[in-house]
């Protein structure tokens, strides 16, 4: 990653006033780098679209600054920003042909009709719809409209391309195709993509970095692997993939490391660095696939044990619900055919194995 393209500094946005005041963004700071596929992920109402619209210039920030390559953008109207948007609804101009849609932005930049036409052909080639220039948008399928919206937004060669849940209206198969397509376009054009979605799979599959948002705040920013394997907040661990949550007390694990002592008395050693300031009760998360099962007789003294309560067979893997007692349930997902012993029966007592680096202590 090289230079910072977009920088949001303590950006806040409220809508309405008085009793109806709604805080959409609460002092968000983030740097987005050159040539990056950056995703803002969160449930609806988390502020991700608001942040995107602030970058696009469609809303005015209530507080804070948004910088483009170090220059403040706040007061620039959208038509003066070298930033283009792919709208959720595509927003193709219904009265213009596909080609006229693509040349629209170029003509606004004062590029001659002939040059704009040539560029539009290139763009149609890029999104693999070279034959469709003379059609009108209503004659295209949803996926094709999506590609034209992309071509139109990419044609003026913006510094940043904003994408507002562009795949949400497509069916699953098309969505998978477009994910690959988007990633390809980003790599080929070298333009910074800022992508908004509530679909965690989509975010993991395409992004260089993901910002997970909730209630107007960014909880965690990181590469997909980091977000998935080392979530910092319960919300992040829960929103992306499946997670088990266990509650215990932070204790000294020896050798400068900390450990978590569960209510049942078992102690789980941690590899994660945890500040000495933190003490008392904490929540830890662990992904179901990072857990394993052994016969209770093979379990060590410090290992968690429980009773298999449910077994669900999924083909590639099998999910076991383990009752730990104290009404605590743990989900264990084991891959089938990996050679591991996996023929546990419901009601059987088992020990649970886990790698220490799979245990993440979450922020309060």
């Amino acid at each position, binding site marked *: 990653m090289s230079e910072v393209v977009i920088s949001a500094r303590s950006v806040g946005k409220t809508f309405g006033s008085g009793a109806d005041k709604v805080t959409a963004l609460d002092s968000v700071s983030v740097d987005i780098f050159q040539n990056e596929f950056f995703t803002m992920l969160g449930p609806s109402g988390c502020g991700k679209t608001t942040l995107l619209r602030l970058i696009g210039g*469609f809303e005015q920030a209530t507080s804070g600054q948004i910088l483009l390559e170090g220059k403040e953008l706040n007061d620039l109207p959208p038509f003066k920003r070298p*930033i283009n948007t792919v709208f959720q609804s595509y927003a193709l101009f219904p*009265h213009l042909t596909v080609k006229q849609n693509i040349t629209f932005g170029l003509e606004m930049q004062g590029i001659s009709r002939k040059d704009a036409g040539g560029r539009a052909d290139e763009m149609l080639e890029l999104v693999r719809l070279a034959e469709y220039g003379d059609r009108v948008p*209503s004659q295209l399928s949803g996926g094709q409209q999506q590609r034209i919206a992309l071509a139109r937004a990419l044609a003026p060669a913006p510094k940043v391309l904003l994408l507002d849940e562009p795949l949400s209206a497509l069916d699953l198969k098309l969505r998978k195709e477009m994910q690959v397509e988007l990633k390809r376009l980003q790599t080929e054009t070298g333009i910074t993509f800022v992508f908004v979605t509530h679909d965690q799979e989509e975010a993991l599959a395409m992004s260089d970095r993901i910002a997970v948002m909730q209630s107007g705040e960014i909880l965690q920013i990181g590469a997909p692997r980091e977000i998935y394997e080392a979530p910092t907040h319960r919300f992040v661990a829960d929103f992306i993939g499946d997670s088990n949550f266990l509650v215990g007390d932070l204790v000294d694990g020896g050798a400068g490391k900390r450990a978590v002592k569960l209510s049942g008395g078992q102690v789980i050693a941690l590899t994660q660095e945890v500040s000495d300031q933190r003490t008392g009760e904490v929540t830890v998360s662990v992904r179901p696939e990072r857990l394993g099962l052994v016969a209770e007789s093979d379990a060590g003294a410090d290992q968690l044990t429980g009773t298999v309560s449910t077994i669900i067979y999924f083909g590639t893997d099998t999910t076991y619900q383990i009752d730990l007692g104290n009404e605590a349930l743990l989900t264990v997902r084991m891959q089938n055919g990996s050679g591991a012993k996996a023929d546990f029966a419901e009601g059987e007592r088992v020990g649970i194995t886990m790698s220490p680096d799979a245990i993440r202590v979450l922020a309060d």
Partner: protein
Amino acid sequence: MGNILRTKRFWLVAPAVVYIGFFMAVPLLQMAYVSVLERGDYGGVNWGAFSMDAYISFIFERDLMDNLVVNTDYLQIFVRSFGLSAMTTVFALLLGFPTAFYISTQPQSRRNFLIFLVTIPFWTNILVRNYAWMLLLRNGGLIDGALNWMGLETGGLDVLYTPYAVSIGLTYTYLPFMVLPIYASLEKLDHRLVEAAFDLGADKRRAMSRVILPLAAPGIAAGCILVFIPCLGAYVTPELLGGGKFMMIANLIGSQFGAARNWPLGAGLGFVLLALVLISMMVYSFKFKSLPEESR
């Protein structure tokens, strides 16, 4: 089953069909018949005596030697009426589009209220409204008086009983017919399209000319037709604000059935007008019918 339903549905529309069929088609046919008859000497027509005089005399008159010579009097009234209607339509568009645009940008609850305000003039009788305009426009009237009071010596506005007064009155009368269809098409307009135009570098002026106006075109065309056509047939406003000095088509037709006692000519003029209106409607539907469907 389907047949029964269709039959039942037919009975639902039957009263309207009978009503329109009888009270519109029959008089229309009767007028068509009248227009091709000989005029009666004291009004009315000579039933059974066919003559194309009405249509011929629209453009020609017979001189003393019984030769046909071109007489453009009626044609001039038609041209003047079309010109005045066109002028009124332009005024109504210039006033109506910004009004409709403003209303469409307001929050929903306020929009309904503003639309309600636009329709308020319909509540008042057209005669009353035109007399009100006479009071406003006449020399020494409200507007003239106000201008004089402000120190602008008008020496009398001299607007009343001119084509301008007629156009002002017609614009006022038909403005709601311009505002409502334009508002309807602007309200349907997806605001994200305007955002997309801004996003692609169009400033407000170009977003207006390249996106909003083309998409509002069907509404603008409908508004223009709804103003233009009733203007052509306007009777009360030219009579009152034009002071009878300034004749429009409807006044001409009226006088043929009245003072001039030339029913066939009156009926014939009516059909010439109807033909012109139908032609402009066909041009409209040919140009704009397809667009709203595509923009959906």
